[in-house]
Protein backbone atom coordinates (compact mmCIF):
# COMPACT_ATOMS: atom_id res chain seq x y z
CA UNK A 1 0.00 0.00 0.00
CA UNK A 2 1.41 3.30 -1.05
CA UNK A 3 1.21 5.99 1.60
CA UNK A 4 0.03 9.47 0.86
CA UNK A 5 2.56 11.38 -1.27
CA UNK A 6 4.32 14.24 0.52
CA UNK A 7 3.33 16.73 -2.13
CA UNK A 8 -0.32 15.89 -1.54
CA UNK A 9 0.12 16.37 2.20
CA UNK A 10 1.65 19.77 1.55
CA UNK A 11 -1.22 20.59 -0.76
CA UNK A 12 -3.74 19.58 1.93
CA UNK A 13 -2.19 22.00 4.39
CA UNK A 14 -1.88 24.73 1.76
CA UNK A 15 -5.56 24.37 0.89
CA UNK A 16 -6.56 24.79 4.51
CA UNK A 17 -4.40 27.88 4.89
CA UNK A 18 -5.74 29.34 1.64
CA UNK A 19 -9.31 28.68 2.73
CA UNK A 20 -8.62 30.48 6.00
CA UNK A 21 -6.97 33.39 4.20
CA UNK A 22 -9.79 33.63 1.66
CA UNK A 23 -12.31 33.67 4.50
CA UNK A 24 -10.38 36.47 6.19
CA UNK A 25 -10.20 38.49 2.98
CA UNK A 26 -13.88 38.05 2.25
CA UNK A 27 -15.18 38.69 5.75
CA UNK A 28 -12.74 41.24 7.13
CA UNK A 29 -10.38 42.70 4.54
CA UNK A 30 -12.86 43.49 1.75
CA UNK A 31 -14.82 46.70 2.30
CA UNK A 32 -18.53 46.50 2.97
CA UNK A 33 -20.56 47.02 -0.16
CA UNK A 34 -22.45 50.30 -0.04
CA UNK A 35 -25.91 49.18 -1.14
CA UNK A 36 -26.15 45.54 -0.17
CA UNK A 37 -24.12 45.68 3.02
CA UNK A 38 -22.36 42.76 4.63
CA UNK A 39 -24.35 40.10 2.86
CA UNK A 40 -22.49 40.93 -0.33
CA UNK A 41 -19.43 39.23 1.25
CA UNK A 42 -21.04 35.96 0.30
CA UNK A 43 -20.18 36.89 -3.27
CA UNK A 44 -16.50 35.92 -2.98
CA UNK A 45 -17.24 32.34 -2.08
CA UNK A 46 -20.30 32.24 -4.30
CA UNK A 47 -18.22 32.88 -7.40
CA UNK A 48 -15.30 30.80 -6.13
CA UNK A 49 -17.42 27.69 -5.66
CA UNK A 50 -19.34 28.30 -8.88
CA UNK A 51 -16.10 28.52 -10.83
CA UNK A 52 -14.84 25.26 -9.37
CA UNK A 53 -18.21 23.57 -9.94
CA UNK A 54 -18.38 24.56 -13.60
CA UNK A 55 -14.72 23.74 -14.15
CA UNK A 56 -15.39 20.24 -12.86
CA UNK A 57 -18.45 19.69 -15.06
CA UNK A 58 -16.61 20.77 -18.20
CA UNK A 59 -13.67 18.62 -17.21
CA UNK A 60 -16.02 15.67 -16.67
CA UNK A 61 -17.39 15.94 -20.22
CA UNK A 62 -13.85 16.00 -21.64
CA UNK A 63 -12.81 13.10 -19.44
CA UNK A 64 -15.95 11.24 -20.56
CA UNK A 65 -14.83 11.53 -24.17
CA UNK A 66 -11.33 10.42 -23.17
CA UNK A 67 -12.82 7.32 -21.55
CA UNK A 68 -15.02 6.48 -24.54
CA UNK A 69 -12.03 6.75 -26.85
CA UNK A 70 -9.45 4.94 -24.73
CA UNK A 71 -11.63 2.62 -22.57
CA UNK A 72 -9.09 3.08 -19.82
CA UNK A 73 -10.72 2.85 -16.37
CA UNK A 74 -8.40 5.52 -14.98
CA UNK A 75 -10.48 8.10 -16.85
CA UNK A 76 -13.56 6.84 -15.07
CA UNK A 77 -11.92 7.35 -11.69
CA UNK A 78 -10.99 10.88 -12.74
CA UNK A 79 -14.49 11.55 -14.08
CA UNK A 80 -16.24 10.48 -10.90
CA UNK A 81 -13.78 12.47 -8.81
CA UNK A 82 -14.43 15.70 -10.66
CA UNK A 83 -18.22 15.31 -10.75
CA UNK A 84 -18.43 14.39 -7.10
CA UNK A 85 -16.49 17.48 -6.04
CA UNK A 86 -18.33 19.71 -8.46
CA UNK A 87 -21.76 18.58 -7.31
CA UNK A 88 -20.87 19.54 -3.75
CA UNK A 89 -19.35 22.88 -4.70
CA UNK A 90 -22.21 23.71 -7.02
CA UNK A 91 -24.67 22.95 -4.27
CA UNK A 92 -22.76 25.35 -2.02
CA UNK A 93 -22.94 27.96 -4.81
CA UNK A 94 -26.70 27.65 -5.01
CA UNK A 95 -27.05 27.84 -1.23
CA UNK A 96 -24.80 30.90 -0.99
CA UNK A 97 -26.64 32.51 -3.89
CA UNK A 98 -29.90 31.96 -2.07
CA UNK A 99 -28.52 33.54 1.09
CA UNK A 100 -27.38 36.50 -0.95
CA UNK A 101 -30.66 36.76 -2.85
CA UNK A 102 -32.88 36.86 0.21
CA UNK A 103 -31.93 40.38 1.37
CA UNK A 104 -31.00 41.82 -2.04
CA UNK A 105 -33.77 40.45 -4.26
CA UNK A 106 -36.14 39.92 -1.36
CA UNK A 107 -36.62 36.27 -2.26
CA UNK A 108 -34.71 33.03 -1.74
CA UNK A 109 -35.15 32.08 -5.33
CA UNK A 110 -36.26 33.45 -8.66
CA UNK A 111 -36.41 31.87 -12.08
CA UNK A 112 -33.59 33.82 -13.59
CA UNK A 113 -31.77 31.86 -16.34
CA UNK A 114 -28.62 31.40 -14.29
CA UNK A 115 -30.44 30.15 -11.24
CA UNK A 116 -32.61 27.80 -13.23
CA UNK A 117 -29.72 26.50 -15.29
CA UNK A 118 -27.72 25.95 -12.12
CA UNK A 119 -30.55 23.96 -10.58
CA UNK A 120 -31.01 21.83 -13.70
CA UNK A 121 -27.28 21.26 -14.05
CA UNK A 122 -27.12 20.12 -10.46
CA UNK A 123 -29.99 17.71 -11.16
CA UNK A 124 -28.19 16.31 -14.20
CA UNK A 125 -25.26 15.30 -12.05
CA UNK A 126 -27.44 13.97 -9.26
CA UNK A 127 -29.01 11.78 -11.95
CA UNK A 128 -25.46 10.80 -12.94
CA UNK A 129 -24.91 9.28 -9.51
CA UNK A 130 -28.29 7.56 -9.56
CA UNK A 131 -27.34 6.03 -12.89
CA UNK A 132 -24.04 4.79 -11.51
CA UNK A 133 -25.69 3.43 -8.39
CA UNK A 134 -27.89 1.20 -10.54
CA UNK A 135 -24.96 -0.49 -12.25
CA UNK A 136 -22.67 -3.12 -10.79
CA UNK A 137 -20.28 -3.97 -13.60
CA UNK A 138 -17.50 -1.36 -13.25
CA UNK A 139 -16.75 -1.32 -16.96
CA UNK A 140 -20.37 -0.68 -17.92
CA UNK A 141 -20.72 1.86 -15.13
CA UNK A 142 -17.76 3.71 -16.56
CA UNK A 143 -19.15 3.67 -20.09
CA UNK A 144 -22.61 4.90 -19.10
CA UNK A 145 -21.15 7.48 -16.78
CA UNK A 146 -18.96 8.82 -19.56
CA UNK A 147 -21.88 9.03 -21.98
CA UNK A 148 -24.07 10.80 -19.46
CA UNK A 149 -21.36 13.24 -18.39
CA UNK A 150 -20.92 14.13 -22.05
CA UNK A 151 -24.67 14.66 -22.59
CA UNK A 152 -24.87 16.75 -19.43
CA UNK A 153 -21.94 18.92 -20.44
CA UNK A 154 -23.49 19.52 -23.86
CA UNK A 155 -26.98 20.25 -22.64
CA UNK A 156 -26.07 22.77 -19.93
CA UNK A 157 -25.23 25.67 -22.27
CA UNK A 158 -28.26 24.92 -24.47
CA UNK A 159 -30.45 24.85 -21.37
CA UNK A 160 -29.15 28.29 -20.47
CA UNK A 161 -30.03 29.62 -23.92
CA UNK A 162 -33.44 27.95 -23.84
CA UNK A 163 -34.33 29.46 -20.50
CA UNK A 164 -33.16 32.86 -21.62
CA UNK A 165 -35.84 32.73 -24.33
CA UNK A 166 -38.40 33.00 -21.58
CA UNK A 167 -36.69 35.82 -19.75
CA UNK A 168 -35.79 38.21 -22.52
CA UNK A 169 -37.74 41.07 -20.91
CA UNK A 170 -36.54 40.39 -17.39
CA UNK A 171 -35.42 43.43 -15.35
CA UNK A 172 -31.76 44.26 -15.68
CA UNK A 173 -31.25 44.07 -11.92
CA UNK A 174 -30.98 40.32 -12.16
CA UNK A 175 -28.36 40.44 -14.86
CA UNK A 176 -26.10 42.67 -12.83
CA UNK A 177 -26.55 40.81 -9.59
CA UNK A 178 -24.10 38.07 -10.40
CA UNK A 179 -20.71 39.64 -10.57
CA UNK A 180 -19.33 40.72 -13.89
CA UNK A 181 -21.12 44.06 -13.93
CA UNK A 182 -20.94 44.48 -10.19
CA UNK A 183 -18.57 47.41 -9.68
CA UNK A 184 -15.70 46.17 -7.54
CA UNK A 185 -13.25 48.30 -5.62
CA UNK A 186 -9.61 47.26 -5.75
CA UNK A 187 -9.76 45.68 -2.26
CA UNK A 188 -12.78 43.72 -3.37
CA UNK A 189 -10.89 42.55 -6.42
CA UNK A 190 -8.09 41.27 -4.22
CA UNK A 191 -10.53 39.26 -2.14
CA UNK A 192 -12.33 38.09 -5.26
CA UNK A 193 -9.31 36.84 -7.18
CA UNK A 194 -7.83 35.35 -4.05
CA UNK A 195 -11.03 33.40 -3.46
CA UNK A 196 -10.91 32.13 -7.06
CA UNK A 197 -7.30 31.08 -6.59
CA UNK A 198 -7.95 29.48 -3.21
CA UNK A 199 -10.89 27.45 -4.48
CA UNK A 200 -8.92 26.32 -7.51
CA UNK A 201 -6.18 24.98 -5.24
CA UNK A 202 -8.77 23.39 -2.95
CA UNK A 203 -10.34 21.77 -6.00
CA UNK A 204 -7.00 20.37 -7.14
CA UNK A 205 -6.33 19.05 -3.65
CA UNK A 206 -9.72 17.37 -3.31
CA UNK A 207 -9.46 16.12 -6.86
CA UNK A 208 -6.13 14.47 -6.19
CA UNK A 209 -7.37 12.95 -2.93
CA UNK A 210 -10.51 11.68 -4.61
CA UNK A 211 -8.58 10.11 -7.47
CA UNK A 212 -6.37 8.35 -4.92
CA UNK A 213 -9.48 7.14 -3.14
CA UNK A 214 -10.87 5.88 -6.44
CA UNK A 215 -7.67 4.00 -7.17
CA UNK A 216 -7.68 2.43 -3.69
CA UNK A 217 -11.33 1.48 -4.16
CA UNK A 218 -10.66 -0.35 -7.38
CA UNK A 219 -7.66 -2.04 -5.78
CA UNK A 220 -9.86 -3.25 -2.90
CA UNK A 221 -12.41 -4.50 -5.39
CA UNK A 222 -9.73 -6.46 -7.23
CA UNK A 223 -8.41 -7.94 -4.00
CA UNK A 224 -11.92 -9.00 -3.02
CA UNK A 225 -12.34 -10.75 -6.35
CA UNK A 226 -9.01 -12.50 -5.86
CA UNK A 227 -10.06 -13.84 -2.45
CA UNK A 228 -13.41 -15.10 -3.73
Amino acid at each position, binding site marked *: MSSKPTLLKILDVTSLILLGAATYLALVYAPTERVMGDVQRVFYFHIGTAWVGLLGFVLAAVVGVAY*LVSKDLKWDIIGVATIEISVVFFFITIMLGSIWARPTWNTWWNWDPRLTTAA*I*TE*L*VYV*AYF*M*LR*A*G*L*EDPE*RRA*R*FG*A*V*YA*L*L*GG*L*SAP*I*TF*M*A*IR*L*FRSIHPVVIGTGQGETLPLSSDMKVAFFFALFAFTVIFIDLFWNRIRLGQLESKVEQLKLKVM
Partner: protein
Amino acid sequence: MVSSPHPSFFQAVAAVVRKDLTAEFRSRELLSAMLVFSLLVILIFNYALELELGVREKVAAGVLWATFAFAGTLGLNRSMSTEKDRGCLDGLLLAPVDRSAIFFGKAISNLVFMLIVEAIVLPLYALLYNEGRIFQPGFLAVVLLGSIGYIAVGTLLSAMSVQTRTRDVLLPILLFPVAIPVLLSAVKASTGFLTGAEMAEIWPPLNLLIVYDIIFTAVAFMVFDAVVEE
Protein backbone atom coordinates in the same frame (compact mmCIF):
# COMPACT_ATOMS: atom_id res chain seq x y z
CA MET B 1 -37.56 -9.98 -46.09
CA VAL B 2 -33.91 -9.02 -46.44
CA SER B 3 -32.18 -11.53 -48.64
CA SER B 4 -28.59 -10.37 -49.01
CA PRO B 5 -26.29 -11.62 -46.22
CA HIS B 6 -24.85 -8.14 -45.67
CA PRO B 7 -27.72 -5.71 -45.78
CA SER B 8 -27.01 -2.07 -46.42
CA PHE B 9 -27.32 0.47 -43.64
CA PHE B 10 -30.76 1.60 -44.75
CA GLN B 11 -32.02 -1.94 -45.15
CA ALA B 12 -30.91 -2.67 -41.61
CA VAL B 13 -32.62 0.44 -40.25
CA ALA B 14 -35.77 -0.41 -42.16
CA ALA B 15 -35.71 -3.97 -40.85
CA VAL B 16 -35.54 -2.81 -37.24
CA VAL B 17 -38.35 -0.31 -37.79
CA ARG B 18 -40.47 -2.92 -39.55
CA LYS B 19 -39.93 -5.39 -36.73
CA ASP B 20 -41.01 -2.85 -34.10
CA LEU B 21 -44.01 -1.64 -36.02
CA THR B 22 -45.20 -5.17 -36.82
CA ALA B 23 -44.85 -6.23 -33.19
CA GLU B 24 -46.65 -3.11 -32.01
CA PHE B 25 -49.51 -3.32 -34.46
CA ARG B 26 -50.11 -6.90 -33.39
CA SER B 27 -50.15 -6.22 -29.66
CA ARG B 28 -50.93 -2.49 -29.53
CA GLU B 29 -49.68 -2.55 -25.94
CA LEU B 30 -47.45 0.46 -26.17
CA LEU B 31 -49.65 2.73 -28.24
CA SER B 32 -52.77 2.10 -26.21
CA ALA B 33 -50.88 2.72 -22.97
CA MET B 34 -49.38 5.95 -24.28
CA LEU B 35 -52.73 7.15 -25.60
CA VAL B 36 -54.80 6.44 -22.53
CA PHE B 37 -52.06 7.93 -20.38
CA SER B 38 -51.95 11.11 -22.49
CA LEU B 39 -55.68 11.59 -22.20
CA LEU B 40 -55.53 11.09 -18.46
CA VAL B 41 -52.75 13.66 -18.14
CA ILE B 42 -54.77 16.19 -20.13
CA LEU B 43 -57.78 15.44 -17.93
CA ILE B 44 -55.70 16.07 -14.82
CA PHE B 45 -54.31 19.30 -16.25
CA ASN B 46 -57.82 20.40 -17.09
CA TYR B 47 -58.77 20.39 -13.43
CA ALA B 48 -55.38 21.20 -11.94
CA LEU B 49 -55.03 24.36 -14.01
CA GLU B 50 -58.75 25.08 -14.48
CA LEU B 51 -58.29 25.50 -18.19
CA GLU B 52 -60.66 28.36 -18.84
CA LEU B 53 -60.55 30.35 -21.99
CA GLY B 54 -58.12 33.05 -20.83
CA VAL B 55 -55.70 30.69 -19.10
CA ARG B 56 -55.84 28.10 -21.81
CA GLU B 57 -54.31 30.18 -24.54
CA LYS B 58 -51.13 30.74 -22.55
CA VAL B 59 -50.68 27.25 -21.17
CA ALA B 60 -51.99 25.06 -24.02
CA ALA B 61 -48.52 24.41 -25.45
CA GLY B 62 -47.13 23.65 -22.01
CA VAL B 63 -49.91 21.20 -21.25
CA LEU B 64 -49.45 19.44 -24.57
CA TRP B 65 -45.67 19.17 -24.27
CA ALA B 66 -45.79 17.97 -20.69
CA THR B 67 -48.27 15.32 -21.85
CA PHE B 68 -46.07 14.25 -24.75
CA ALA B 69 -43.00 14.14 -22.53
CA PHE B 70 -44.68 11.89 -19.97
CA ALA B 71 -46.26 9.65 -22.58
CA GLY B 72 -42.93 9.59 -24.40
CA THR B 73 -41.01 8.19 -21.43
CA LEU B 74 -43.69 5.55 -21.03
CA GLY B 75 -43.25 4.48 -24.63
CA LEU B 76 -39.46 4.66 -24.60
CA ASN B 77 -39.27 2.55 -21.47
CA ARG B 78 -41.60 -0.06 -22.84
CA SER B 79 -39.99 -0.19 -26.26
CA MET B 80 -36.54 -0.81 -24.82
CA SER B 81 -37.53 -3.14 -22.00
CA THR B 82 -39.27 -5.54 -24.38
CA GLU B 83 -35.98 -5.75 -26.25
CA LYS B 84 -34.08 -6.40 -23.06
CA ASP B 85 -36.50 -8.81 -21.37
CA ARG B 86 -36.79 -11.31 -24.15
CA GLY B 87 -33.16 -11.07 -25.13
CA CYS B 88 -34.07 -9.41 -28.41
CA LEU B 89 -31.41 -6.80 -27.94
CA ASP B 90 -28.70 -9.46 -27.85
CA GLY B 91 -30.14 -10.88 -31.03
CA LEU B 92 -30.08 -7.50 -32.68
CA LEU B 93 -26.51 -6.92 -31.55
CA LEU B 94 -25.45 -10.25 -33.01
CA ALA B 95 -26.76 -9.23 -36.41
CA PRO B 96 -23.94 -8.33 -38.78
CA VAL B 97 -25.03 -4.72 -39.16
CA ASP B 98 -23.71 -1.42 -37.98
CA ARG B 99 -24.79 -0.74 -34.39
CA SER B 100 -25.93 2.73 -35.29
CA ALA B 101 -28.44 1.15 -37.67
CA ILE B 102 -30.05 -0.39 -34.60
CA PHE B 103 -30.08 3.01 -32.93
CA PHE B 104 -31.74 4.68 -35.88
CA GLY B 105 -34.18 1.81 -36.25
CA LYS B 106 -35.24 2.04 -32.61
CA ALA B 107 -35.31 5.83 -32.71
CA ILE B 108 -37.46 5.91 -35.85
CA SER B 109 -39.95 3.41 -34.49
CA ASN B 110 -40.12 5.31 -31.18
CA LEU B 111 -40.65 8.49 -33.16
CA VAL B 112 -43.43 6.86 -35.16
CA PHE B 113 -45.17 5.79 -31.95
CA MET B 114 -44.85 9.26 -30.50
CA LEU B 115 -46.16 10.86 -33.69
CA ILE B 116 -49.11 8.49 -33.80
CA VAL B 117 -49.99 9.43 -30.23
CA GLU B 118 -49.62 13.11 -31.09
CA ALA B 119 -51.71 12.66 -34.22
CA ILE B 120 -54.55 11.42 -32.04
CA VAL B 121 -54.08 13.66 -29.01
CA LEU B 122 -53.75 16.95 -30.92
CA PRO B 123 -57.05 16.71 -32.82
CA LEU B 124 -58.72 15.54 -29.63
CA TYR B 125 -57.33 18.53 -27.80
CA ALA B 126 -58.47 20.78 -30.62
CA LEU B 127 -61.91 19.25 -30.37
CA LEU B 128 -62.18 19.40 -26.59
CA TYR B 129 -61.00 22.98 -26.32
CA ASN B 130 -62.11 24.27 -29.68
CA GLU B 131 -58.51 25.17 -30.58
CA GLY B 132 -58.30 25.19 -34.37
CA ARG B 133 -54.90 26.87 -34.50
CA ILE B 134 -53.25 23.56 -33.73
CA PHE B 135 -53.51 22.62 -37.36
CA GLN B 136 -51.20 25.25 -38.81
CA PRO B 137 -48.12 23.85 -40.54
CA GLY B 138 -45.75 25.83 -38.30
CA PHE B 139 -47.17 24.32 -35.14
CA LEU B 140 -47.04 20.82 -36.59
CA ALA B 141 -43.42 21.38 -37.64
CA VAL B 142 -42.57 22.33 -34.05
CA VAL B 143 -44.27 19.16 -32.83
CA LEU B 144 -42.19 17.11 -35.25
CA LEU B 145 -38.89 18.84 -34.39
CA GLY B 146 -39.54 18.62 -30.68
CA SER B 147 -40.40 14.94 -30.92
CA ILE B 148 -37.25 14.22 -32.91
CA GLY B 149 -34.98 15.79 -30.30
CA TYR B 150 -36.78 14.18 -27.41
CA ILE B 151 -36.78 10.74 -28.98
CA ALA B 152 -33.14 10.91 -30.08
CA VAL B 153 -31.91 11.49 -26.54
CA GLY B 154 -34.64 9.31 -25.09
CA THR B 155 -33.75 6.29 -27.20
CA LEU B 156 -30.11 6.54 -26.15
CA LEU B 157 -30.94 6.99 -22.47
CA SER B 158 -33.56 4.25 -22.45
CA ALA B 159 -30.94 1.86 -23.83
CA MET B 160 -28.87 2.82 -20.79
CA SER B 161 -31.61 2.79 -18.17
CA VAL B 162 -32.93 -0.68 -19.07
CA GLN B 163 -29.54 -2.10 -18.19
CA THR B 164 -29.61 -0.70 -14.65
CA ARG B 165 -31.17 -2.11 -11.52
CA THR B 166 -33.65 0.75 -11.14
CA ARG B 167 -34.63 0.65 -14.81
CA ASP B 168 -38.16 2.04 -15.11
CA VAL B 169 -37.70 4.67 -12.46
CA LEU B 170 -34.44 5.90 -13.88
CA LEU B 171 -35.40 6.92 -17.42
CA PRO B 172 -37.35 10.11 -16.60
CA ILE B 173 -34.72 11.11 -14.07
CA LEU B 174 -31.98 10.77 -16.68
CA LEU B 175 -33.99 12.14 -19.56
CA PHE B 176 -35.81 15.20 -18.21
CA PRO B 177 -32.84 17.32 -17.11
CA VAL B 178 -31.06 16.68 -20.40
CA ALA B 179 -34.19 17.17 -22.50
CA ILE B 180 -35.22 20.43 -20.86
CA PRO B 181 -33.86 22.59 -23.69
CA VAL B 182 -35.92 20.73 -26.26
CA LEU B 183 -39.08 20.93 -24.17
CA LEU B 184 -38.62 24.60 -23.32
CA SER B 185 -37.92 25.73 -26.85
CA ALA B 186 -40.74 23.57 -28.19
CA VAL B 187 -43.16 25.09 -25.69
CA LYS B 188 -41.98 28.58 -26.54
CA ALA B 189 -42.26 28.06 -30.28
CA SER B 190 -45.66 26.35 -30.08
CA THR B 191 -47.04 29.04 -27.81
CA GLY B 192 -45.87 31.52 -30.42
CA PHE B 193 -47.86 29.77 -33.11
CA LEU B 194 -50.94 29.31 -30.94
CA THR B 195 -51.08 32.95 -29.88
CA GLY B 196 -50.35 34.20 -33.38
CA ALA B 197 -47.03 35.83 -32.51
CA GLU B 198 -44.71 37.37 -35.10
CA MET B 199 -42.28 35.00 -36.82
CA ALA B 200 -39.41 37.14 -35.50
CA GLU B 201 -40.42 36.02 -32.04
CA ILE B 202 -40.77 32.37 -33.00
CA TRP B 203 -37.47 31.97 -34.83
CA PRO B 204 -35.11 31.98 -31.81
CA PRO B 205 -36.75 28.98 -30.07
CA LEU B 206 -37.21 27.28 -33.42
CA ASN B 207 -33.53 27.69 -34.25
CA LEU B 208 -32.56 26.39 -30.85
CA LEU B 209 -34.80 23.38 -31.41
CA ILE B 210 -33.10 22.64 -34.72
CA VAL B 211 -29.64 23.05 -33.19
CA TYR B 212 -30.56 20.73 -30.34
CA ASP B 213 -31.94 18.12 -32.74
CA ILE B 214 -28.79 18.15 -34.83
CA ILE B 215 -26.33 18.07 -31.92
CA PHE B 216 -28.11 15.43 -29.92
CA THR B 217 -28.98 13.15 -32.81
CA ALA B 218 -25.33 13.26 -33.84
CA VAL B 219 -24.04 12.62 -30.32
CA ALA B 220 -26.55 9.84 -29.65
CA PHE B 221 -25.56 8.25 -32.95
CA MET B 222 -21.87 8.42 -32.04
CA VAL B 223 -22.11 7.09 -28.50
CA PHE B 224 -24.81 4.45 -28.99
CA ASP B 225 -22.11 1.91 -29.67
CA ALA B 226 -20.68 2.48 -26.21
CA VAL B 227 -24.08 1.98 -24.62
CA VAL B 228 -24.96 -1.39 -26.11
CA GLU B 229 -21.57 -3.06 -26.37
CA GLU B 230 -21.02 -6.11 -24.17
